């Protein structure tokens, strides 16, 4: 029982990070219609920029995170402006492939600067454990869940309350109508990429802190696909539920059944969902049927 509770905490914290990564993915898909295969690499770049600012340049942690966020914003805007905008209206294959090419470049650039081995970064979140209800919980995992929850709440508030957030939802709903109301769709596109990079950065930093900062972060990034398919490609609450389901199922399968199977359990789940409910649990049922 106590083991079960511990596994649950591990699963929920994995899921919370996945939800952050998936949130960026959904943001981009919802407002620009692009499937971003580089989301995992965004996690990686985010973790490495904060590492560079924090460890290499010896900045204080808060400043390092601010630098990381600024870098993520600039990167997101530049990627949108230089790579994605010329491809607006092109076929799905071109758009998917351009993000795959982008993923290769980002991952390799990180490798050029930091090598392939994991870099050492002092643990930021405390690595102690706490006892609760007869089970031991790692404190850093619990803090990850708290931080992710706060960030996700902030993002939700942003979409519900702020002018820009509402404008983003308007563009996602109907681009032409948004244009006639004077919303700059271009700016919204750039913002979507910037915010996606920021949410991936937070996810990447958290994941790097509880595991390690290495190129293996991108494998975690691939799990974004099962998450968004489960939650629905265009649903923000769906990413949270999807992230939690994938995170928990991964942990349970790996601890109670077979660690190797846990790597593809999310994909098996994905195929099952595509067969039964291709638009996901919360997605709009506007899927194009053939």
């Amino acid at each position, binding site marked *: 029982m106590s083991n079960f509770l511990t596994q649950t905490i591990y699963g929920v914290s994995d899921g919370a990070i996945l939800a952050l990564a998936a949130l960026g993915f959904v943001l981009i898909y919802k407002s620009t219609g692009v*499937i971003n295969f580089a989301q995992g690499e965004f996690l990686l770049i985010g973790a490495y920029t904060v590492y560079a600012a924090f460890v290499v340049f010896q900045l204080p942690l808060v400043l390092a995170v601010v630098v990381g966020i600024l870098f993520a914003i600039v990167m997101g805007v530049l990627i949108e402006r230089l790579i994605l905008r010329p491809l607006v209206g092109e*076929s799905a294959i071109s758009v998917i*492939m351009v993000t795959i*090419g982008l993923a290769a470049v980002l991952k390799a650039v990180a490798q050029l600067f930091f090598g392939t081995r994991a870099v050492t970064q002092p643990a930021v979140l405390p690595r102690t454990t706490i006892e609760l209800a007869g089970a031991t919980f790692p404190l850093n995992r619990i803090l990850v869940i708290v931080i992710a929850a706060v960030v996700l709440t902030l993002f939700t508030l942003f979409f519900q309350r702020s002018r820009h957030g509402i404008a983003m939802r308007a563009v996602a709903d109907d681009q032409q109508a948004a244009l006639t109301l004077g919303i700059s769709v271009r700016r919204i596109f750039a913002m979507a990429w910037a915010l996606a990079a920021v949410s991936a950065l937070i996810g990447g930093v958290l994941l790097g802190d509880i595991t390690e900062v290495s190129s293996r972060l991108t494998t975690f990034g691939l799990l974004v696909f099962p998450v968004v398919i489960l939650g629905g490609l265009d649903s923000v609450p769906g990413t949270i539920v999807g992230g939690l389901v994938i995170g928990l199922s991964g942990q349970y399968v790996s601890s109670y059944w077979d660690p190797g199977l846990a790597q*593809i359990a999310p*994909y098996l789940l*994905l195929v099952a969902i595509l067969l039964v409910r291709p638009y996901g649990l919360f997605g709009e049922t506007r899927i194009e049927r053939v």
Partner: protein
Amino acid sequence: MSATATGVYHRSYRRESALRHTKAEYFRLALMIVGLLVTPYVLDNYWLSIVNTILIAVIGAVGLNILVGFTGQISLGQGGFLAIGAFSSALLYQRADLPAPLSIACAVVITAVAGALFGLPALRIKGLYLAIATLASQEIIVFVARRWTFLRDGSAPLTVDRLSLGSFEIERQYFEWQWYWILLTFAVLAVLAARNLFRSSLGRSFMAVRDQDIAASAIGVNITRAKVTAFAVSSGFVGLAGALSAHYTETVTWEAFTLDVSILYLAMIIVGGLGTIAGSVYGAAFMVLVPVFIQETVGAVGDSVPVLLSRVPAIEQVVFGLVIIFFLLFEPRGLAQIWQRMKDYIRFWPFRY
């Protein structure tokens, strides 16, 4: 002064559906044949092995282009299908003692059937969803290949005996040379088969599904049939490439069939040109040669800039990604289109068009 023909005009349907129309095309064909015949006598073993890799890649790229370029069904499962072809041919040859041609043929059929099965989701979903579904099938196939001990020799990867048939045997000394002729035969047959497929009604129905599936069904194309056959035919080619690579490399391990391989093949057909057979050939050659070229360059300047040597894989990946991005942004129709433009420029010279 006699008039010169300013375009290609056809006077009969037979002429129009011919593969080649002009004398220049026959001339280029003759030049290409001579080039291919001379190649093994000019190149040393190292370069011949690269040419052999290209020939296998050509078969795989043609297969993927049938699916992605001609039928418009995006697939990230190429690596998985290569794995099915390679493992089935290797197992049939090694454990069931089938003669090589039979094991390769069986591998083609098995991969085609597997492709049709994995293509079934394409009947209900398309575009982005299909890409993700094929990504899942890729991960699942590689997982099976990694975990199933039957697909290994104990703890070592599956090895395949040197190819032999009756009294013919590949000799160590002439290894690359003999394989060149075998692979060239298969590659030429594959290219011809694919080229002719798109002169038949089946191939035309693939293209109709790609261009507008609803319109295609309105004019009587059976979409279900077209899609499932496209997956089967494409996987058949890919299975052939996988089987040949198993016999050529003589080891089969799951590491050769990861998602990166799927992406590499997609890059080949995008760089070469989606929806052109010639493009698959150019793209396969290009994407195989780029890392070789990088290695040669780094090797040449490596003495003066030693830091480059340790970064070769990363440099290759950066170039790989940039090549994909640049082609999509600046020449989405690929090398085939560049070649076409060059030919047009010469043909219309001194006029612009």
